[in-house]
């Protein structure tokens, strides 16, 4: 018995299909898919922590929110070719916060780690909620969307729906490729070893704290990148982006998709966002739409009970055994 080999062509075909989708989608559906792709980047970043390293964080939305706020706060009022440096800046800001949180929270384990990450995220939430700089509970608006370009050449202008879609798609593909490389590398195998048996990894000579901090910072930076995309897509940020609801939602995406798989994170983001859209749509569910949280909660309970290994577990239903 050996672990199933990752077939590279499935994500490649999925990426190509995704790129072609806008030509057959309505503007609303195109926006919805772009939103799903942003959340897929967010979920992929958490997958590195939870699925690969075994660190369950309940404060991951702090990095998403920091990336989003930094993008809006640092974006020039005139717009311009700012995305080329705004995206790295959002990642850097989230990474710096991740270093601080990681250095303190990674001294704890298990449920204590969950609570400490939640506490740090709530601290960040109230900083943005209660300060004038961040616009308080109303948040901030991005009046002119920055474009992606080099010098006088504009590559992608997110103000245009199709180009925003391509930008988000490119970031998703790059994030997926980076994490696929990381998880199959020595670094990724060491993270997996830490998830399975940290004591043994230390006994073998690994400085496990360094590895966990590195994973925490990479995950934070990628969540910051998702936050930057979210700010550019929506043109508005508010403290709810940092709330524990968002942290819980992205964890649910991983659980729905199936922990331990990059594809699971993407599938989970798709499933969670579509379920949420479905249950919040008055046209589809009528008056129940007002109570979409209830319907979404029940549906997630049913899905998790039926598929304890998430939607990725569906594969085993039609795979030959033996």
């Amino acid at each position, binding site marked *: 018995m050996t672990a199933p080999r990752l077939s590279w062509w499935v994500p490649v075909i999925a990426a190509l299909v995704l790129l072609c989708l806008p030509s057959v989608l309505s503007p609303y559906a195109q926006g919805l898919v772009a939103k799903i792709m942003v959340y897929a980047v967010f979920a992929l970043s958490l997958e590195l922590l939870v699925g690969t390293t075994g660190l369950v964080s309940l404060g991951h939305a702090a990095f998403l929110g920091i990336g989003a706020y930094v993008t809006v706060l640092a974006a020039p009022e005139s717009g311009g070719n700012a995305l080329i440096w705004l995206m790295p800046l959002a990642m850097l800001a989230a990474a710096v916060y991740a270093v601080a949180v990681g250095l303190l929270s990674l001294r704890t384990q298990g449920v204590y780690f969950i609570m400490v990450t939640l506490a740090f995220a709530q601290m960040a939430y109230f900083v943005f909620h209660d300060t004038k700089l961040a616009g308080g509970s109303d948040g901030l608006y991005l009046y002119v969307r920055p474009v992606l370009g080099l010098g006088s050449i504009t590559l992608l202008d997110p103000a245009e729906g199709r180009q925003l879609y391509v930008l988000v798609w490119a970031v998703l593909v790059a994030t997926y490729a980076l994490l696929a490389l990381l998880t*199959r*590398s*020595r670094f*990724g*195998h060491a993270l997996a070893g830490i998830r*399975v048996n940290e004591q043994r990894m230390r*006994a073998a000579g690994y400085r496990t704290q360094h590895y966990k901090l*590195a994973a925490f910072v990479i995950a934070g930076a990628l969540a910051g990148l998702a936050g930057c995309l979210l700010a550019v897509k929506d043109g508005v940020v508010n403290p709810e982006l940092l709330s524990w609801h968002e942290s819980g939602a992205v964890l649910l995406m991983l659980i729905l998709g199936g922990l331990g798989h990059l594809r699971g994170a993407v599938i989970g983001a798709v499933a969670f966002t579509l379920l949420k859209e479905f249950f919040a749509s008055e046209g589809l569910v009528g008056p129940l739409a007002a109570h979409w949280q209830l319907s979404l909660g029940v549906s997630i309970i049913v899905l998790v009970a039926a598929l304890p290994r998430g939607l990725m577990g569906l594969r085993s239903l039609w795979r030959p055994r033996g």
Partner: protein
Amino acid sequence: MADAPALQATTLTRRFGGLTAVNAVSLSLHVGEVHAVIGTNGAGKSTLVNLLSGELATDEGHVTLGAHDVTHWPQPKRARAGIGRSYQRSTLFGEFSVLENCRLSAQSALQRPWHVWQSASRCDQSLAVAQEVLATTGLADVASRIAGTLSHGQKRQLEVAMCLATRPQVLLLDEPLAGMGAEETERMLALLQSLKPTHAVLLIEHDMDAVFRVADRITVMVDGQVIASDVPGRIRTHPEVLRAYLGEAFA
């Protein structure tokens, strides 16, 4: 033994609240020697291994590895410097293959986490070490099996193989024979004999027949203290050891 010790512990002491689990224990491990530590349950043997490997900090005393005082070195640094240990209970990567268990252990010597473009499973150096230790420990035939599915004896062998994969000079083996059948015990004892010329081995074990067959020196601990440390022939007839641990019938 004329050679300088590979590992030396000097008056190691560790307390847990009011309990002194290890009390001023001194011992030396030499390459070419199997040094057994025996004693009743709760005598402090596993705590001693934890102190030597760096898993626990010492309250008093020193640990010297070769020419280095490693007392304040963290466990991973001691492991990379040449102290390998196995655990009383198997601590494998149960969901990985047997080969990957050893490869990951071997990888600690060449971690290079920034080599993200290279697949770990194609890391020739760590693969070669893993295959070599699997051959040494007789596990080459089950290299592709998932570690969690191995028999108890094979898991104990894999524990030792993972230790060896880190290329240690000092091996701290905590009850490697626990729960093994007669045939598996023989295999493990043969393995220990084969490792002796190139390693300093500390063996904690309750199987006295095996200990007296393989050990060159035996240290006996009772209540955290060393009550005797000598060659097996003298330990067998040591009055205090007979009274406190082995029993008069053993002599």
